[in-house]
């Protein structure tokens, strides 16, 4: 298993080299972003989480979203679900720690919302944030845009 993991991450890094930066995926100003390409919108102690336009663009057609149960605890950078495109499976990590208070049930019947509306109707979970201090570990929209460009042009 370990060797497969190494192989997988190396495959990914090589894929990254080979895919030219395709264009300017949109970012939203007031959101915070994780290096694993999720966004979070914080309102009081509640946070809404989804995947970025950049991520959905690279994933392609999303055909299934594996949603967690309401009431489950999540940790910052911890995986809470998965998105499946035609060919790929990817973990979704939580940008914040806390307890899941709502999941977007609409994605069960319409997973494509993640592609068509990544920042609005394609949201994935809502979390009651337990440690707002963690938000400083995240990027703002400007930093995230730059991060995507750098990641695409790396190597």
């Amino acid at each position, binding site marked *: 298993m370990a060797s497969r993991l190494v192989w997988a991450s190396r495959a990914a890094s090589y894929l990254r080299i080979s895919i030219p930066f395709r264009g300017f995926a949109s970012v939203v100003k007031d959101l915070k972003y994780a290096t694993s390409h999720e966004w979070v919108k914080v309102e009081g102690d509640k946070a809404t989480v989804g995947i970025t336009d950049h991520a959905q663009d690279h994933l392609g057609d999303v055909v299934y979203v594996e949603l967690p149960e309401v009431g489950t605890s999540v940790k910052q950078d911890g995986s809470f679900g998965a998105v499946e495109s*035609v060919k790929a499976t990817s973990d979704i990590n939580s940008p914040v720690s806390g307890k899941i208070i709502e999941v977007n049930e609409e994605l069960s019947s319409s997973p494509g919302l993640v592609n068509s509306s990544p920042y609005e109707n394609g949201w994935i979970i809502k979390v009651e944030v337990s440690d707002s201090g963690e938000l400083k570990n995240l990027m703002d929209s400007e930093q995230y845009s730059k991060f995507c460009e750098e990641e695409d042009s790396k190597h």
Partner: protein
Amino acid sequence: MRGGLWQLGQSITSRLAQTDKKTVGRRFFSAESELKKTVLYDFHVTHGGKMVPFAGWSMPIQYKDSIMDSTVNCRQNGGLFDVSHMCGLSLKGKDSIPFLEKLVVADVAGLAPGTGTLTVFTNEKGGAIDDSVITKVTDDHIYLVVNAGCRDKDLAHIEEHMKAFKAKGGDVSWHIHDERSLLALQGPLAAPVLQYLTKDDLSKLYFGEFRILDINGARCFLTRTGYTGEDGFEISVPSENALDLAKAILEKSEGKVRLTGLGARDSLRLEAGLCLYGNDMEQHITPVEAGLTWAIGKRRRAEGGFLGAEVILKQLEDGPAIRRVGFFSSGPPARSHSEIQNEGGKNIGEVTSGGFSPCLKKNIAMGYVKSGSHKAGTKVKIIVRGKAYDGVVTKMPFVPTKYYKPT
């Protein structure tokens, strides 16, 4: 096994890499500069191809269309694939047929000149070294195409046996067609579009048949075959004429035939129930287990005389212990290595390829189960990320094939 959102390449490339595991490290991850390029490389890039390392080559995994759209377009209109990474090979000499029959399960002698078949190269244990489409051009010329990821090991295997065969006085030699490129033109528009580019009557060339002819002014090897389940052709063209031919095909189709990448090619072959070597067939899997018993010629079953024949003939008599079958499943798409359980929760096998079918809009998969659990309609559980989802054994192909056969 999974990466974050960014590590998309993992599952795409692992599923598509036809290399056997040992060579992956060495060949698959050679530096980008070491990757081989087909003569259409710049053409792919110009048309928006996302180039990825594949079996030592830099190949387009998709173009501007999504894999979903690209797959559907191939079945509705047509797809043009650059498959020049695959290895074309000619065996020549008056003993070519008996030589090849030692290595494959097909009745090569029984093929009419100008016809071909899918076959399997076997090892001493009856396992598959590779699958290959072979054509008997004439009694002293066999043309075959082997997988890119298996090229080195296949050629070494053939060469070793050829030396021994020649030492005993056999007349056979080979030519590797590195001077040629290979294009696959698939889908309902394949024949009408190609007909614009040749004077030969393609309505007389049926599925599995082969002809050497002029296409778009170049001397081509044309086989009515493919890897999508659709009607179509594989065209071996001199490399200096490949770009012109690709352009001419796209132009004659008025944009309906689109460049199609490895991603859609994998969806298409899965929908057609066709094996991907390295996933669905490996060194330890026999053609009988893989559901390719039909490819073992009748005479070969009676006479044997190919590597691993004892094992394979015994399996034909007793029935194999495991069998390749198809599945529909609920929940997330099953991927290779997903566990298959019976309704009682007992392990009965493993998925070898799986994904979301762009044409059927549901999850399809293929894998191996213990004999007894292989009948269509058998209910199973498929385990994805620790959860059991309902599945059912299903006949393949998932999407009906449309091969062009005489009526």
